[in-house]
């Protein structure tokens, strides 16, 4: 255990709301899978179906080829960390962590040993006599992790476990959760709407929107090769820039993007895929970091505009850039000095352009 398979799974709530639609997903044994998407897209619903807290309405859910649609949570060998932590308020930290073992009739000495073990690992042994109300947010979070860990489950489910922590703690806990996954050697399914969390933690990411899977892939796939504009926009900070325009093929081999005065020459694979699309209306995507000022490569890679705003963000700065009345955001080195209203030309990394169909938003190159 345990690989988890969704076969055309759908979830309809009793009020008729279709929260998850036709989900097909293979979660591999020992994988760290992240469900990523905006609020209300059905991430928690999907997780709750794995836990057995929500019934599957359509399709089949399998744990290692065994159908578990109707299996109650306590027989599934899953443990879960809730966004609110859901600690039992009247129980001590020890009893909170021990509860799952007590319910499973694990002998008293073994329970004590395992709770102590987990507490040691999470560095909360000195808190075992306290009540949840006497803990800080970060400590509660550890108790919630301990409660799941101690069970040694086949599947570890986490629903936005870090969203209630402050920024610094969130980043250090990310590393701990990654270590935990290494140490426990079990399947992790992790829900978040934070792209940075997803990119750092995941072996694979599932991006969802309105109950529909948009893309499944490694963090690299998702970031570098987004299959549609939704995925492309959801990841990246500042978000990816879009410019609508058309494909122009000249001399039968030079493939470019044209929009007014702007002309960008496609490179390599992209050029080949678009070679027969002369005149096609497309939406060009340029990631904020894929521009450069210092390197001046030929005229066919320059985008010109007026500086609208300059936002220093420590290591870099965000440049708000007015291009034909559209506001684009780029991330450039902080040593570059720009006055507001100044006209600049930025050189675009032509090998990293994204091309989407203008109407459907689907990628034309990946």
């Amino acid at each position, binding site marked *: 255990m345990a690989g988890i398979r969704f076969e055309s799974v759908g979830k309809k709530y009793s009020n008729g709301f279709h929260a998850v639609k036709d989900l097909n997903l293979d979660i591999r044994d020992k994988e760290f899978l992240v469900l990523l998407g905006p609020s209300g897209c059905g991430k928690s619903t999907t997780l*709750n179906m794995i*836990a*057995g*807290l929500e019934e599957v309405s359509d399709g089949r859910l399998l744990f290692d080829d065994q159908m578990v649609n109707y299996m*109650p*949570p*306590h027989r599934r060998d*899953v*443990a*879960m960390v*809730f*966004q*609110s932590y*859901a*600690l*039992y*308020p*009247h*129980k001590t930290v020890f009893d909170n962590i021990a*509860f*799952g073992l007590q*319910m*499973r009739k694990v002998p008293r000495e073994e329970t004590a040993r395992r709770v102590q073990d987990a507490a040691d690992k999470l560095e909360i042994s000195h808190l075992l006599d306290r009540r949840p109300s006497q803990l800080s947010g970060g400590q509660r979070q550890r108790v919630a992790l301990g*409660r799941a860990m101690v*069970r040694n489950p086949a599947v570890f489910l986490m629903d936005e476990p870090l969203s209630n922590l402050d920024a610094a703690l969130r980043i250090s806990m990310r590393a701990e959760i990654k270590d935990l996954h290494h140490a426990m050697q079990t399947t992790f399914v992790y829900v978040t709407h934070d792209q940075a969390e997803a990119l750092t933690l995941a072996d694979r990411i599932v991006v969802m929107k309105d109950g529909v899977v948009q893309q499944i892939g490694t963090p690299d796939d998702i970031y570098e090769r987004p299959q549609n504009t939704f995925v492309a926009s959801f990841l990246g900070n500042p978000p990816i820039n879009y410019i609508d325009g058309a494909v122009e093929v000249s001399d039968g081999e030079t493939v470019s993007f044209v929009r007014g005065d702007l002309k960008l020459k496609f490179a390599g694979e992209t050029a080949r895929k678009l070679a027969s699309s002369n005149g096609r209306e497309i939406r060009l995507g340029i990631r904020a970091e894929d521009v450069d000022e210092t390197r001046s490569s030929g005229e066919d890679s320059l985008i010109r505009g007026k500086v609208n705003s300059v936002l220093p963000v420590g290591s870099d700065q965000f440049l708000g850039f007015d291009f034909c009345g559209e506001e684009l955001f780029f991330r450039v080195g902080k040593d570059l000095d720009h006055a507001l209203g100044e006209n600049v030309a930025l050189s675009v990394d032509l090998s990293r352009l994204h091309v989407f169909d203008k109407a459907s938003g689907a990628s034309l190159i990946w």
Partner: protein
Amino acid sequence: MRRLFGYEERSAAIFLAPVLAVLMGVAVFPILYSFYLSFFRIKLTRPNRTPFVGLDNYLDLFTNDLFWVSVARTVTFSVVSVAAILAISLLVSLLLNQNFRGRRVLSTILLVPWAIPYVANALMWKWIYDSGYGALNGILYQLDFIDKYMVWLGDQDKTIFLIANAFVWKEVPLATILLLVSLKAIPSDLYQAARVDGAGVWQRFIHVTLPAMKPGFMLVLIYETMMAIRHFDLFFILTEGGPGNASHVLSWHIYVETFRNLSFGSGAAMSYVLALVTFALSYTFIRSLGRKV
């Protein structure tokens, strides 16, 4: 430091003054005055001789047999009533916390007894228990449980329980609401966590529901105990302490002493004893239960 009270304090004082004056007149003054009276032997049948007797009114109480009878009756009435109120309101609140068709209608109907004034409630039950045309007799007779009409309130062994029944009927709605509030406040993910942890229905009730209801339980316990110990209306309207002294509770004892025997001094002393006992009980409940919540 020159002005102790600023503008805000002074305007607050002006706005509060009328209310405070009224409170002084109708609450604080009578309380203090009756405390003062409890040190005198005052009988309206002998209006001109009201000697100061110190603690005699209090000491005399404890040698009075009827006083101890009334204490026993009050204890019986309160324990039975409060236990029944707790049990019934627990069940009803658990029921109303479930989602089912008609829950709203049921909740509304359930509130009716709460809306009825105590005296009206007492008169209603007087009619229900009536030996000649009462509804209880009517129903039991038609269902063949009894073969002749009974004088329900005339039965020494049953009276106090029948009165308790009327009291419980009136009090359950409020108790239910208080418990329902603590039930509604339980986050649903606690139940989800317990399910994942392997707890069954009963274990979830024991480990999640009951502990969360403790504050509500405590509130009901304290409030209803105070109401039951001091309750008067039902005894006044249904039985006047009878038959014999079967429903001669403390509040009735005080009433008889004060307004029938016109012995204001000892009546005031008893009132103070009752108030002290009520206070002491509440204090103990809060201390002992409060620590475990």
